[in-house]
């Protein structure tokens, strides 16, 4: 179990840890709801200015190369957005003439397996590595349907009574995408 960096936990530490976990869950679930309720600009507010929003591609490699089957920092990716390009994506949807999302997709983000990786300190500006799994369901037009599953590695930065996501790495399972586009978020 993840622990604060402050050594063995006393009762108060324990309570603090439990509250932090709830806070993180609440934060990520709210984030999912903002997306599913199409509050895209409010959603963007959850990201820091230095966000890296990154979805590498996957490859089929031999057993001995299995660890390289997620593309690296400077390789081709599906997404590799910063704050500005993320904002562009939102702006594009808000034009009302982004045909790939007009009419808007109906999306559900199921977020599960939330846990903190490693030790952490919960102080202003500190960063916590949070892992989660996702299942994103997208349905649009008549019967266009996609289920995409994978994992996320989020770095949450403590900012006051909330967090900013300052890095999101999205690891999907598909190599060849069977969905025609990625006009929605993860």
């Amino acid at each position, binding site marked *: 179990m993840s622990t604060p960096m402050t050594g063995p936990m006393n009762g108060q530490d324990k309570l603090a840890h439990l509250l932090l976990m709830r806070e993180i869950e609440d934060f990520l679930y709210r984030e999912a709801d903002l997306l599913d309720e199409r509050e895209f600009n409010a959603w963007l507010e959850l990201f820091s200015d230095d966000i890296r929003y990154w*979805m590498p*591609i996957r*490859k*089929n*490699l*031999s057993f001995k*190369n299995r660890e390289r089957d997620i*593309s*690296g920092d*400077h*390789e*081709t*990716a*599906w*997404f*590799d*957005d*910063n704050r500005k*390009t993320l904002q*562009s*994506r939102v*702006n*594009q*949807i808000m*034009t009302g*003439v*982004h*045909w*790939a*999302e007009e009419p808007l997709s109906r999306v559900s983000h199921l977020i599960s397996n939330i846990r903190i990786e490693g030790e952490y300190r919960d102080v202003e500006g500190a960063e916590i590595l949070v892992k989660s799994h996702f299942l994103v369901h997208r349905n649009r037009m008549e019967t266009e349907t996609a289920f995409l599953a994978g994992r996320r590695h989020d770095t949450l930065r403590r900012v006051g009574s909330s967090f900013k996501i300052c890095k999101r790495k999205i690891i999907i399972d598909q*190599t*060849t*995408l*069977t*969905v*025609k*586009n*990625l*006009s929605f978020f993860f």
Partner: protein
Amino acid sequence: MKSAITVGGATNWFVDRNIFSSADIYQQELERIFRRAWLYVGHESQIPNVGDFFLTKMGEDSMILTRDQEGKPRVMLNSCRHRGMKVCRYDEGNTKLFYCPYHAWSYGLDGRLVGLPAQKESYDASFDKSKWGLVQVAQVATFKGTIWATWDPNAPPFEEYLGGAADALRVGLGPWDAGDGEVEVISGVQKWIIPANWKIVAENCAGDTLHDISHRSVDLARIGPGEGVGRRDPFGKLYLTHHREGHGLLYEKFDIHAPREHYSSSPETAAYFQMTWKKRVERLGERAGNAPVLGNIFPSSGFHVGQPRTIVAAHPRGPNETELWRVFLVDKAAPPAVKDFLRRYYISYAGPAGMTEQDDMENWAYATEACGGTGRSLQFHYGAAMGQSHQDPLIPGNVSDQFWSEQNARQLYTRWQQFMDAKSWDDLRFEDAR
């Protein structure tokens, strides 16, 4: 087959919608087009060393692209001659042998059958291993780093096949400074499947100027690499051109003396561009002001020269489905920060998460869907700016007078019809080009 094209008066140029939905026509396309034409299969930078391999596609087939012991690229069907199993199941790597998991036949880098369990015990001396190597394509060619292949031994050499489009590829696939430096693929391939007929993709790659308006959302959202621009830095004046071989291209012309402020939102990239631009002008002079922008090599190998710099192969998967493979290219010599800025811009523009391509794909998908049902008996309209082309000293091919023209699509379908009607390459080669 009955021609799918109807040509009437000055604005009547129609194509039967059922060629985008018929399963029979699709099967014929696989035979008559994808087993005859030259197809893009990869880039030299993807297999720099002997034994490097990269899995690619031709038509519906999985193909191995590898570099053999002599350093030559080889293109071979990824299927064991014994009972068909895939002998290569990794997207890329380096190997000495392609080993079949089923009964352990193994093949060399040149495709030759080199190993065979129980050969002595169970195969007569008459068994001729040299006949049981991996099935090889008939011809392989390299061109400015790109690698192409065809199944047809009677297909003309690749440069003859390119015809007047060779110029665009020669310029477009080279480095920005027009020198001898290399261009490389950014590691990794975007592969995804869309519910659209491959020809609709090809027609887009060939220069569908009229659909510019469909990208209004990215122009409004200003996703370009320069401050204040829409989805790209400004072009010069644009010209469509096409070639009898079926290729369609878009060129731009601009004043080489006018200031160019491209990539203004990334100082390193802007600087790199200025530097290479200067060298390019030094090297090419006025010709630097006549540049290919994008194009489609018949049947369905598309490329963009600059924003983004990318090659896309549209692999057919049935009348209603296409698998797109997209790679992005950068100057090998560019600084890491420039490569990185470009990589990010490119994938935000094209590919499934590309803000521009997303809207294209939406249109392609529903255009394809419209070819079923009642659509089977209807036609598409390709009548824009008919018969309005001229020759240009600096732009090869038939250059459209009109920017808003469908001439390139018309040429694509004209050539498509020729391939579908031809008995062999004898009916398709141009005498004066041999």
